[in-house]
């Protein structure tokens, strides 16, 4: 196997070190994602953008029935603005939130995005988002037209990061036929009404009329109704393990213990659609789903009943945000501002997605008043809406603490008090970590 060749001049130490040095130089050119410097607030730019054609990337988590509604709004915008082309990408929410930071850091992410209200702090603290205070001031958007709670919660550390598109709250759905034939037409209003309705349905032959899944949104709703909260308003102390928390979670477990709901439920919509259950606690995302997949079912939707001693309901909101990438030059920044302003003002097609528009001017349209979710858009609901506070890393903390506790208690038979005590301990440790890293 030995091929005899004339050996070339042997390499000297100098050539070898030279090679080594040049490759080290190459390696040093590798990009890295680190903590960027804090973002400059987006500057307000006068009027709508005109000029060289701009191509903007728009990411959103609308992969369900709400995707086509948003696509229609983007198409309308593109048609009305020949100088701007907005390219929309819908990603599963988890994937979007995983990708957005490195993508924006590398300049290949979105210029504009829709984020859930509770995610603003996470990405503001990581310098993915730019403050919008100057922009909203210049545009004359001062919250007057918006649901106050949704508008006020878009602020983190004194700077505004989101412009609400909509809001959505925990709701009750009921099968009108089943409740009418049991002699208790809906909606259920309070704890007594709930008990009576369930008893009437059960004696009418529906053994398990209300299936309880490990829904943390239901837990947050009940937590507020029993007078508790997840964290203190400053986001420094976890309070989910309070007496109110235990009462809220115990109520959910009780429904299973008393046989109102079977155990191990992960999908409560299917039994509701096929008539095995007659009551459903779900978000407005269920509206387009029910319309599409259960066209024969007669159902209504109303605000979630007041089970605890005071009113309260879980709420969240989709928000427009601008990323650092949108500020790469004056034209891109101006075009991005134009898009957010225009779509926010022309958000009527969004009603088809099942959510409640955040702007009063859109809620006053006939189109919204005749939609099912109009029943959820009452001043009473807006006043008691419990939004999640702005805490960086809130979803990680939530997943490891109260969401996990709800799952363990509802599916795993763990004692609610024990599950929540551990959740509170975990959330506190993670809050402390985050607050330490924020400096």
């Amino acid at each position, binding site marked *: 196997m*030995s091929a005899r060749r004339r050996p070339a001049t042997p390499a000297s130490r100098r050539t070898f070190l030279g090679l080594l040095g040049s490759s080290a130089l190459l390696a040093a050119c590798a990009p890295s994602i680190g903590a960027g410097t804090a973002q400059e607030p987006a500057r307000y730019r006068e009027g709508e953008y005109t000029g060289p054609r701009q191509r903007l990337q728009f990411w959103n988590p609308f992969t369900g029935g709400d995707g086509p509604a948003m696509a229609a709004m983007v198409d309308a915008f593109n048609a009305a603005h020949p100088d701007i082309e907005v390219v929309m990408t819908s990603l599963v929410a988890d994937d979007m939130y995983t990708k957005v930071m490195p993508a924006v850091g590398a300049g290949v992410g979105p210029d504009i995005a829709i984020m859930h209200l509770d995610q603003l702090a996470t990405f503001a603290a990581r310098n993915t988002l730019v403050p919008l205070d100057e922009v909203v001031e210049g545009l004359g958007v001062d919250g007057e037209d918006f649901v106050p709670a949704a508008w006020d919660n878009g602020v983190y550390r004194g700077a505004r990061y989101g412009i609400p598109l909509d809001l959505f709250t925990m709701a009750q759905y009921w099968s009108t036929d089943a409740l009418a034939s049991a002699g208790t037409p809906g909606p259920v209003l309070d704890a007594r009404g709930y008990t009576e309705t369930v008893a009437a349905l059960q004696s009418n032959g529906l053994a398990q009329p209300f299936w309880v899944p490990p829904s943390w949104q239901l837990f947050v709703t009940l937590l507020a109704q029993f007078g508790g909260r997840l964290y203190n308003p400053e986001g420094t102390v976890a309070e989910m393990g309070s007496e109110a928390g235990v009462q809220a979670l115990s109520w959910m477990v009780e429904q299973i213990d008393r046989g109102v709901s079977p155990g191990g439920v992960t999908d409560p919509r299917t039994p509701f659609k096929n008539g095995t259950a007659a009551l459903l606690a779900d978000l407005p995302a269920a509206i387009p789903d029910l319309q599409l997949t259960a066209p024969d079912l007669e159902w209504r939707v109303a605000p979630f009943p007041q089970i605890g001693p005071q009113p309260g309901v879980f709420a969240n909101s989709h928000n427009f945000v601008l990323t650092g990438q949108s500020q790469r030059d004056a034209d891109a920044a101006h075009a991005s501002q134009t898009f957010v302003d225009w779509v926010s003002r022309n958000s009527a097609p969004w009603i088809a997605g099942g959510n409640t528009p955040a702007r009063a001017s859109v809620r006053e349209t006939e189109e919204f008043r005749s939609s099912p979710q109009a029943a959820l858009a009452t001043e009473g609901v807006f006043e008691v809406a419990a939004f999640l506070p702005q805490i960086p890393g809130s979803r*990680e903390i939530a997943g490891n603490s109260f969401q996990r506790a709800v799952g363990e208690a509802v599916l795993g038979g763990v004692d609610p008090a024990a599950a929540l005590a551990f959740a509170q301990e*975990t959330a506190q440790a993670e809050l402390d970590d985050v607050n330490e*890293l*924020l400096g």
Partner: protein
Amino acid sequence: MTAVSSTELSRSRRDSKPRLRRSSPWTALAFLAPFLVIFTVFVIVPVASAVWASLHRWSLGLPGTPWVGGANYAELFAGSTVMSVEFWKGMKATGIFTALSAPLLITLPLGLAMLLHRRFPGRTFFRALYFAPYVLGVAVIGLLWRYLLDRQLGPVNQILGIDVAWTTTLPAGWVSLVVATLWWTIGFNSVIYLAALQDVPKELYEAATVDGAGPLRRFTAITVPGITRVLQFVVAITIIASANMYGQSALITQEQPGSDTRTAIGYIAETGIQGFDIGASSAMSMILAVTLMLLSGIVVLGFRKLGGNDR
């Protein structure tokens, strides 16, 4: 041959030009350098950065990255936080999968290789056939098996006439993952065994047959000792590959039921990539890596003790 000729060569060169040494150590290093550079950039630097990261409390993008020494490790080993509980649950899932799949992936391909080693019509076709799934990516086989195993629509339940939730219950979930992995990678180990079998001298088998050894005796006395080195390699890489399983559980069972089929790698990815927690996920990676190194060490030592026909 080689040794002699090169000695002659260097002697003759030394006679004419005594200052040029053919065997300068820098020459060897220069030829190794391209690989060394790649190895450094893609293995040593990342591993070193991961060790470095694991010693910090580091959430991607947040300004503070304080040095915490071994605190990330201590937290994981203490097992009292949610993260440590979930991590060890992932390690257990990885362990279960490895314990179920590795023995099958070591033994079945050997049997298959011995079959494919025999002479029969269409031998090359079958060799290619069994290797074919290996060329598919994990995304392809993941989607394929998820469809095949779907409870309502999947052909598996329909053909067998049963109603098993292959992807959402245990132990059916583990069966699904192991069978899919077996189907996917059986060809790779078979090819390696096949190459090893072709290196076992035929005369040994003939001599043994003449001496009256039956098939089983020939297998234990000639085949196994003849391929010990390759067997050791297969055992080691199969354990490592099984322990690094991620794509199958992400795609086929989607970590269901609950997160029971989420492997260690799955949880590391979730913590680091989705949760931005670089410090803790690096510490988890280190624990997994050291565990695999120890396992590989045990395999090597075990085979050394067994012996084999080493020179």
